[in-house]
């Protein structure tokens, strides 16, 4: 598992109060992990803080699974040339 994936899962576990072993890349935040759809911008803000990045509000809407979050953040980090803060 990549470092980004591990950190994304740690954030999801902490924010949604879900045990880490129940989180996999196919997990949908709302359907599988008990998030309310309204919370997705909070989750995105938590990713932003963890990775020191800034995402657009509308980006939150496209991040529906753990896997898409990892993909989105990895892409963002490679584009901006940063991988940590």
């Amino acid at each position: 598992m990549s470092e980004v994936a591990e950190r994304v899962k740690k954030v999801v576990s902490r924010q949604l109060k879900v045990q880490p072993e129940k989180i996999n890349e196919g997990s949908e935040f709302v359907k599988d992990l008990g998030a309310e759809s309204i919370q997705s911008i909070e989750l995105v803000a938590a990713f932003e803080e963890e990775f020191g990045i800034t995402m657009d509000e509308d980006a939150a809407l496209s991040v529906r699974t753990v896997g898409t979050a990892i993909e989105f953040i990895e892409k963002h980090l490679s584009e901006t040339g940063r991988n940590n803060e």
Partner: protein
Amino acid sequence: MSLIDTFLEKARKEKKRIVLPEGNDERILQAARTILDKGIATPVVLGKNLSLTGLEIINPDTSPLLDKFASLYAAKKENITEGIARKLVRKNLFFGCMMVAHGEADGIVAGIAHATASVLQSAGLAIGYLKDVHIPSSFFIMVLPQFLEEKNKILVFADCAVNINPSAQELAEIAVTTGKNAGDILGIEPRIAFLSFSTKGSASHTDADKVIKAVEIAHGIAPELIIDGELQLDAALIPRVAQKKVKLSEVAGHANVLIFPDLDSGNIAYKLTQYLAGATAYGPILQGFKKPVCDLSRGATADDVVGITAIVAVQAQRRH
């Protein structure tokens, strides 16, 4: 006088502070200038690297309100740290909603550069919902050039934009919120019809049962409102048909607020009325939040923004 002119005039009488968080869009700057110059409201524009004479501009990144809002938001949410809250509040849309939530502005007009869902999320989290309301919804003000003997007939349609398949409870909340808003904004006495393909038990189906249940719940939430259902559209609007199909109703034949059972029917109905009856559609106007919030369409013009801002300002005047 057109309906929008009426709102512009009402808005001018008691100026409200309206936040426009998408200042990096040229249409918002043009609209803000008009709103200011014509005295429709006091616009507060959010954005980076903006400077325009006479306009109040706030850059959330450098505003002293950033830390205040971050602390307030983190304090009310169990798993939101101040660091996460700062990330949220730095976003213009969220910052604008926090301004409204904490009395720095009276209403927000956004959505020209954001998806409706983003506006709904930010408003739901930062501003929250009215008492007895658990969902956001929306309504349209429809102005028909002619209906029966009446010119410029005003009807209110809901929900034509947000809730896809509301439950009976949700439908009841949509109706009550819409009725109250119609009364507040338009100054009419709302007569609320819950629409269905059935009139007072003429058809038997679980979909009609949902509407019947919603009528019962709505009576419980707001006994002071004039509500009836389930009604077919003709029984709701046409006195001649109502006389034949419905006994004793203050709504049948005289409805001015139409509550559609789902988004399919509501959305199709407003477009049919717009295109086949030549009606003007104002909306969708969001509702259900503790303070006025408006979602602009991405294709809105600067003039549209000015008109919607007037509607939001009038809503804000009614919330004392």
